[in-house]
Every structure is written in C-alpha cells, then in structure tokens.
C-alpha cells in the first residue's frame, strides 16, 4: 500500500479525469455525490482514523500527470503544505497562484464579505498567465484552490476541512484563510506541477456537470 492518499471530491462524470487519476502512484478515496458542506465530517473522520503519511485533496475537474504529482509528493519532504496550480477558469487570465501580501485585509479573506466583494475582488491578487514564467520554481501562494493540495496528517489535523456559511461553501478558501491568519505554515506552490482545470463559466454543460442529478447517488469508494 502507498503511504500517500488522494481524497477526490467527485460530482462530475469525466472519464478523462478517472483515467488520469488511476495513473497516479497513490491510494485514492472517492467521495462521490456529496455537496461541499456534507463532506466536512466524512473527510475529517477519514483523516483522523487513517494512517497515511501524506494526504492530498482535489475536485474532479482537475487533471494532473503522474510526473507532476510525483513532484508534489517529493516537495512534501521539504514543505508543510504544497499545491499544484492552474487557471481559476478557462475564460479568465487569472491563475490560482495568489500573492500573500495583505491578502487577509483586502478581499474575501476578510471574515465579513459580501456577494459584491466576492465578484469584484476574488482575483485581485492572483498572478496572470503572462506572469508565471518569471516566477521561481517554488512560490508561496495565499490560495491553493484544492489544486492537488497536499500535507502531512498533523497539518490536516490542525486545519480540518471546514466550509463557509451558506450560500458559499468554499472549503478551499476557508483552509487558506486559516493558514494565512495563523501564519505558522506557508502554502507552497510548485510551478512545475501545473494542473488542467476543465472549467469555463460561460458554458453550463449538463453532460459534464449536471447539478440536478450529480448529488443523487452518494458513495465512498477506496482503492485500499
């Protein structure tokens, strides 16, 4: 059995994702059909009651190659929290790599934010695509987006999976906000571990993501 597990938050029907994940050298646990709020107790119980060395997390619209995933795994020997990165959406120029400077004060990481704040300020401090090549191989980010974010069990236990109050869930934002606020760990983005984000908000394709049916069948599937 591998010492690394990938927790997959799965609500879509994407064969390409399945085949890419099956190639990764790690164990997998699929949380299928659960809403983000429903996942909190299950993810936290799993981390608490299992004994893997490294825990990674991803939603099922992100595709990574085995080589890039291995880069992330090996980086966990050096850093406490590592993550891949990618486009926030295909129809924008912003990536998930976000400048940590003043992040807590300036945008939705503030504890009381409004819908307008969310719309207008979410990406204000994100690096744009044309800025990526000039970044170093490892760069601190204020946001991971669950783009194959990994850490050791102890760190997961310190920062369990939590969501914002409805209508937002944003467990990824919650995680990064707490880490930034405590300033104990750094979230390190590995530049070579870029991930393909299959997402364009201009198009709501029910063949890919059907919100009317995707939460109907719930199950947890493990490879171990």
């Amino acid at each position, binding site marked *: 059995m591998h010492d690394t597990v990938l927790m997959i938050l799965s609500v879509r029907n994407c064969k*390409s994702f399945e085949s890419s994940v099956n190639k990764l050298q790690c164990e997998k646990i699929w949380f299928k059909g659960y809403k983000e709020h429903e996942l909190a107790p299950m993810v936290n119980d799993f981390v608490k009651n299992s004994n893997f060395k490294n825990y990674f997390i991803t939603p099922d619209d992100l595709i990574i190659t085995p080589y890039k995933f291995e880069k992330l795994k090996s980086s966990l020997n050096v850093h406490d929290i590592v993550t891949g990165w990618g*486009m926030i959406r295909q*129809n924008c120029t912003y990536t998930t790599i976000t400048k940590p400077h003043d992040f807590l004060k300036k945008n939705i990481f503030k504890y009381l934010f409004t819908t307008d704040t969310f719309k207008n300020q979410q990406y204000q401090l994100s690096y744009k*695509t*044309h800025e990526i090549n000039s970044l170093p191989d490892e760069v601190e980010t204020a946001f991971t987006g669950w783009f194959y974010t990994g850490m050791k069990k102890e760190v997961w236990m310190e920062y369990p999976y939590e969501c914002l109050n409805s209508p937002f869930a944003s467990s990824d934002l919650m995680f990064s906000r707490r880490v930034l606020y405590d300033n104990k760990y750094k979230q390190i983005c590995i530049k070579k571990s870029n991930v*393909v984000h299959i997402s*364009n908000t*201009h198009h709501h394709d029910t063949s*890919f993501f059907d919100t009317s049916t995707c939460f109907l069948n719930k199950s947890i599937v493990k490879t171990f």
Partner: protein
Amino acid sequence: MHNFTIDYTDGLVIDNKTYDSEFAKGKESHYMVKTYFLHKKIKRSLQTYPDQLGITATIEELETISDKTLLTSNDCNLGCWVKPSFVKHFVPYYVEIWYNNELYIKDTLDCKFKLVNFTLHPKDDRELYTWMNVIENFKKETQCDISVKNDIVASTSEFDHIVDVKFNTDDQNKQYYLGLHVGRFYQPNTQMPDLRYHPDQLHNKNSLNIINDILYYFTTII
C-alpha cells in the same frame, strides 16, 4: 457597469448578457466591437559562444514587434450578442469593446497555460497521426494544454504525451478556452468547402495543408 463576455470556444462570440440600465442613462444604447489580427515579428540572430569544446551556436530572439490589422467592426444593441466574424479557424485576435466612445474592454487571445480543444474528424489513422504531430508543435509554441475530442484518441494512450484531456468525438461540453475543428467541412448540400474552416479552399489539399490552414493561415508559422 455593463458586463461583457468574450468567448472563443466556437469561433468568436461577444455577449452583453447583463447591462446596467442606471449606468446606461444618457449614454448610447449600443456598443461597438472591433476585432484585429495581431501579428508579431520576431527578429532572431545566430549567436556564437566559445566553450571548452570549441564554439557553440544558438539562435536568440533579439526583438519582438507587435502590430495589429483591423478585421471587423460591428455595432450591437446593449443586452445582445454579436459574432464579429464567422471564421472558425485560428485567428490571433485582439478584441476591443467600445461604449459611449470610450474603450471599455480589450482582450487578446492568449492560449498560454489554457486549455485548447481540437475536435478531430480525420479520414483515416494516417491523417490523425499527421494532425497530432502538428498539434504537438502548436502545444510547444503556445505553452497551452490540449484536449482532443476524437474516439480513437480517447481510446488509446498513444498520444498521452500530447493530449492532457480526452473526450469522445460527440462530447458536447465546452469547458475549455479555445475550440477548433479539424476536418473537411462543406457548405450544406453542396460540394463547396466551408470557408469558415477552410480559408484557402480544399482543392489539392493534403492532410498537412488542411490543419495548417486551420491553425496557421494567418500566422504562417510552418
């Protein structure tokens, strides 16, 4: 403020789904879209450097000059969408949206780190291999990610070094940045080539010519 979307998934479509009626008071009731073809000239030079084994030669980029040529100019009512051009092949677009005589939004088509989808309709496996080689070259040039909609590609690992995401040919999703179709396309009920895909017709075109026209008609890199 008005909200515009610029969509490259199947040709170019600009939409003003939501407009701000308060903001529009006393201003024009339409917007204008200008599209340009963005062309870059890269000056390269052969540089030589002495090293332990003699002299090494490298080609270095000295200067990049960008220029743009106006392709289309369209007026459109607020709240409506517009297709500035019916072209479906690759165009290095620079788009300007003007409102009330002011430049409101500008956008440059830039595939770097984004997902470009190719829907492939080859006549045989040989043609598919030819096209995949050109797509590999396109991927290196633009630093983009590649998805392919094609049943053969979806069922094999042969092209996994090129293709990041695989879909079946009839998959309708558009969860990518730029969408291109490669094949032989004709106007309905005729043998006339569809010029939206084949800007230089289809006469005497081999497999390589077809994909070159779709990807490089404007830029002629190959």
